[in-house]
């Protein structure tokens, strides 16, 4: 069904550039979710920034197995609790000289809160963008 009307915002009409088909000057907000227990991320969560506020133990976020169905899915994870977070997907994470990392865990004492990373699926691997938030780091585990 075609869209027939769209409101203006501050005098501007949100639209696609007809030449490039790009959304121009993207203005948006991201979805955010708090998880205090382990959680398996879904395709429908794509674009979500997860945090661990209130967790009293480590929280493990399990990523979907990379596949064509989740190509382009992305998530952000930020440890906001002192008990830390892990991001897991067996043999599918690309990080620091390995393409078969199983998990990344914020577990370095005194540098857990604030550890943050983005992950993006390319359909076969999870590509990692770890934030360099001072000394907050992730430790990789591989089988």
């Amino acid at each position, binding site marked *: 069904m075609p869209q027939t009307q769209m409101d203006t915002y501050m005098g501007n009409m*949100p639209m*696609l550039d007809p030449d490039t088909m790009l959304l121009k000057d993207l203005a948006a907000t991201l979805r955010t979710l708090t998880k205090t227990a382990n959680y398996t991320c879904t*395709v429908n969560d794509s674009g979500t*920034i997860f*945090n661990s506020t209130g967790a009293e133990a480590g929280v493990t976020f399990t990523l979907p197995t990379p596949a064509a169905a989740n190509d382009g899915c992305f998530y952000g994870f930020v440890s906001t609790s002192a008990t830390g977070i892990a991001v897991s997907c067996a043999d599918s994470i690309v990080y620091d000289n390995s393409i078969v990392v199983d998990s990344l865990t914020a577990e370095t004492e005194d540098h857990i809160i604030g550890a943050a990373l983005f992950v993006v699926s390319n359909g076969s691997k999870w590509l990692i963008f770890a*934030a*360099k*938030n001072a000394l907050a780091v992730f430790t990789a585990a591989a089988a």
Partner: protein
Amino acid sequence: MAHQTQMNTFMGNAPMLDGDTLQIKNIAATLNTVSKAASYTVKVIDSGTVFDTTGATGAVTFTLPPVANAGCFFVFVNTVNQNMAVVSDPVDKMVYDNDAAADSLTASTSGHKIGAALLVVSDGTNWLAFAAGNGSAVFTAAT
């Protein structure tokens, strides 16, 4: 009020939300970019904007909007050899390197100011920080 009455197709497809996931698929977009040569109080309607400091001849402070605006996100990149600070208002709302209540993050390390880059996302309670690992460019937290 003006309305958009038609939307072009691209490769035979009309840009639309996926009917099952309500996700924008294969998003192609450009970001809003703004240079600030003087200190600036960021607005909620700036969400999605990449700020830089081009033209500044003194320190630039970006004061974030109220953290209650979940999902708002901004990017800050220092493009001049001056200090650049990102400050929460009120204080104690930034999560960074073992501190869930930082006041501000400042690129102030001599020789590593230009290129310091930071993404912040509000989860409604805190500003979650993702500092880029751009060489030795760093942010210093104030608490």
